[in-house]
């Protein structure tokens, strides 16, 4: 990094040297090799101030403290300060509007968009000690043109959850979300992913890059089946309420939703459709021009540890890219197929990816909701 080079060329005073020795010695005791290098970089580059993190609700001091506890321990003077992102569109708008964040966490489908936007810079994976334990397929998905723009963290599947005591699917297919027999008992996800799912159901070759004609077909399918939908859910607690109260019997859902409904004593099945589920992966991205790049690396390293990974799986029910971690719940282990490192790729699932015409997809989904 450019700042490091400049700093090292400075003439050192005795005081500087003593301080440096103390800091690196201390860090060396706790964090090992890369911790030493990192602590030294941080001190030399004098990265000050609190680390500005733009993250989803539930990952800050509102419940996610365990994910970055290790970072807070080693960097007490640079505790993270959180701004919420409602979703990637919200983060994009905030960044464009001038929010000075150091890092944020979009999902895998946005990696290429942000990598080419000029808003982010690649990570230096040598500074992340836990990087070697991260799932290689997810790591690859965070790369663009050979550079590591995204560090994978949480992940899961999009598939169908249904009540086996109320619903008899005709086929293991995404079509269950469009089944006329269950009018008013279906919940979709409030996201352009519904267009991707429509595309998979209609058999399009590349549902992330549909032609105009294909998009119109997908939109038409969704509009024609909208009358079956009780609600388009956007937060998991919404879904749990809908499903738990019996208002809805069939829903687009993530693995943890199956685990939670099972815990409520409902007879539920988590169905991987034959057209294949979609897998999603959260990606930490480093914003360009951040004054605290080394601190950001330290934060992501804390998130990537096996301890944080296990906490995430146990408490939020998402998978974690750290392949060493295993949740306590055997149900979740099964639902996430955690013993299969290839779970997020073909032939098991389609890993979510860049949508070149995302703005158009978004507009078409908004029109589905408006019609």
């Amino acid at each position, binding site marked *: 990094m450019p700042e490091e080079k400049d700093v090292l060329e400075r003439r050192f005073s005795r005081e500087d040297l003593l301080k440096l020795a103390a800091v690196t010695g201390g860090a060396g005791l706790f964090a090992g090799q890369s911790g030493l290098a990192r602590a030294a970089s941080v001190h030399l580059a004098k990265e000050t101030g609190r680390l500005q993190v733009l993250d989803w609700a539930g990952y800050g001091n509102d419940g996610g403290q365990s994910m970055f506890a290790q970072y807070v321990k080693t960097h007490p003077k640079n505790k993270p300060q959180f701004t919420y992102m409602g979703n990637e569109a*919200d983060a994009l708008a905030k960044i464009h509007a001038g929010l000075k964040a150091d890092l944020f966490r979009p999902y895998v489908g946005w990696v290429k968009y942000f990598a080419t936007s000029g808003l982010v810079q690649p990570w230096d994976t040598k500074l992340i000690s836990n990087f070697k334990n991260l799932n290689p397929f997810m790591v690859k998905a965070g790369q663009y043109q050979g550079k590591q723009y995204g560090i994978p963290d949480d992940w899961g599947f999009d598939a169908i959850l249904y009540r086996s005591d109320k619903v008899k699917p005709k086929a293991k297919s995404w079509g269950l979300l469009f089944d006329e027999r269950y009018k*008013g008992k279906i919940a979709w996800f409030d996201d352009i992913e519904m267009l991707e799912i429509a595309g998979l159901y209609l058999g399009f070759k590349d549902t992330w890059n549909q032609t105009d004609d294909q998009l119109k077909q997908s939109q038409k399918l969704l509009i024609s089946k*909208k009358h079956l939908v009780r*609600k388009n859910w956007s937060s998991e607690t919404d879904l749990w309420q809908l499903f738990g109260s019996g208002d809805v019997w069939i829903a687009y859902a993530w693995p943890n939703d199956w685990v939670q409904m099972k815990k409520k004593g409902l007879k539920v099945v988590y169905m991987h459709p034959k057209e294949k589920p979609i897998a999603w992966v959260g990606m930490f991205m480093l914003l360009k021009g951040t004054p605290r790049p080394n601190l950001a690396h330290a934060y992501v390293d804390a998130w990537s540890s096996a301890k944080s990974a296990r906490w995430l799986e146990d408490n939020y029910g998402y998978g974690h890219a750290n392949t060493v971690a295993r949740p306590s719940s055997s149900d979740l282990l099964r639902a996430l197929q955690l013993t299969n490192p290839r779970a997020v790729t073909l032939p098991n699932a389609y890993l979510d990816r860049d949508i070149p015409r995302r703005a158009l997809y978004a507009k078409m989904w*908004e029109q589905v909701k408006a019609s």
Partner: protein
Amino acid sequence: MAARRERVRLDLTTPTLLGLPVAWLVVFFIVPIAIVAAYSFDVYSLFPGTHGFTLAAWREFVHSPVYLALFWKSVKMSLTVSAIIVVLAYPLAYYLALSGTKRKYVLLLVLIAPFLTSYLLRVLAWKVILGDQGVINTFLFWTGVRSPGHPISQLLYSRFAVMLVLGYIWLPFVALPIFVSLESLDRRLLEAASDLGASRLQAFRRVTLPLSLPGIMAAFLFVFIPTLGEFVTPSLVGGANGYMYGNQIVDLFGTGFPDWETGSVLAIFLFGIVTVLTVVFTRFLQPRRVAAD
């Protein structure tokens, strides 16, 4: 004669007093609206790059089958809600104002007491009442009107739920202007009417109702305008079916992919319609003078 400079004493009281509120309105109301309008013409944009004044987004808004239809849907929902609760609120306000009850103001307080609680909690309470396993459906199962397993599903997450909850939220608001206009009714007019031989019903139709019309108009506008752009209640209890115009505006700004241009078009359109309506209806809000022949 030496010219004397006369000191002109300007009365600066009114301009000074008005100055601050006007400045406030300009800075925090007019300017933001202008900025939103700029976004709708792509003069401002969220994304860097070349942008110039263009009517493209407006043209799309007008020609697309979706947006105006959604607006019309919201208009219909708001009209229905407003009309029904004005009709319901009138007797309430009438009793409070004209029955001569000593506990008038206590009852008024009871009427507006719900405002002292959280809006969100009140809306969420309806979820408990209207759901498939909610209070109403459980009651219907218990009385045998519906068999368990066949609840009325349209109660919650539907257009009906949105209109019901909006009506419930706004009823106290609506009663107030009607109450005020009935309160200020000159009772001697009613006495005069009965002296002239009018029955109670006739007096109501020919005297009370017309004189309370400004109050009714104000009440109607009071509820129609906010519910037209409503998005919180539809997002909580509306489901897929109860989606309203305001929801589309919020979604265009906040989800999927930021489309501030289209969102601004929808927002400015709503603002324009509401302004026109307010101007038109304000004519009816002028107090009518009763001519004595």
